[in-house]
């Protein structure tokens, strides 16, 4: 029995598929820790990656993607778990793979997906008091319009922001 078959046998809710020649297992989000444990027992002992994707118009909106690796013989598997946009919570797999810690924090930081059971779900890459989750598709890139000196009337050096926004009092953060 191949490793993938061992996973789908252990957790019936998991569905194996193929994506451009790569092995993929789709799981409902509640079964993610069970499938991760089954994968580890089937031979995928090394944790590689956990990330999130925002599909915006699809339902479920988010997808948590886990990549695992088996060493001997080398084989990879990808676990996909859909997470709905109105209830962005997934169970944490830090109990199965300790290395998922930082990756889940990063997914929380950039996408706002909560991981229940994570020991310390705080922002990782962005400052603590940052508002919003920038990698969501409805979040803009955040580019700042660049004004060239020759085009502006001002005499001081800063060139960021539109010419009118130079000196007004800042609004308090809402």
């Amino acid at each position: 029995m191949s490793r993938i078959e061992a996973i789908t046998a252990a957790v019936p809710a998991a569905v194996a598929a193929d994506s451009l020649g790569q092995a993929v297992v789709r799981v409902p989000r509640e079964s993610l820790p069970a499938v991760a444990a089954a994968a580890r027992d089937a031979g995928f002992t090394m944790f590689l990656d956990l990330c999130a994707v925002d599909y915006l118009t699809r339902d479920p909106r988010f997808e948590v993607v886990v990549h695992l690796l088996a060493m001997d013989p080398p084989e990879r598997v990808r676990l996909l778990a859909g997470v709905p946009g109105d209830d962005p919570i997934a169970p944490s797999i830090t109990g199965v793979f300790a290395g998922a810690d930082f990756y889940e924090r990063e997914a929380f930081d950039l996408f706002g997906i909560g991981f229940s059971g994570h020991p310390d779900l705080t922002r990782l890459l962005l400052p603590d008091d940052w508002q919003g989750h920038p990698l969501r598709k409805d979040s803009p890139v955040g580019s700042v319009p660049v004004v060239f000196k020759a085009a502006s009337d001002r005499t001081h050096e800063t060139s960021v922001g539109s010419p009118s926004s130079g000196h007004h009092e800042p609004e308090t953060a809402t």
Partner: protein
Amino acid sequence: MASPAGPPNILTVSFNRAVAWARTRSMWPASFGLACCAIEMMATGAAHNDLSRFGMEVFRASPRQADLMIVAGRVSQKMAPVLRQVYDQMAEPKWVISMGACASTGGMFNNYALVQGVDQVVPVDVYVPGCPPGPQSLMHGILTLQEQIQDKARGR
């Protein structure tokens, strides 16, 4: 440059020039390498392009012992207060070289995460463009700064 004694005269200007000469000949940088530009900054200090001939190979770990801060790399929003704190700890006279495109203007990353130009946070004396600027560009920037200091002493 007027002195307390009155308008500049031959004595004060010569003294200022001597002081500027001394300052430029041993300007110690604070190590503030952030990203790729830091690698080229290290390359400028290494044997091939030698910063030691300008008296600058000692990158001081403590900003209190440094005169020059070369901001080498992209400054993220999280790093900006740290940058300012390090700059404030340096003693006068101090200068800042903004090395690379990201430090000068935000570079190719015009997005939420970076401060668009380190001159939003600290006053900059010389901007060195490049991504990353090669060691020769950085040295040109350093020499330009030295000229600036000496020109100021001459009252230009």
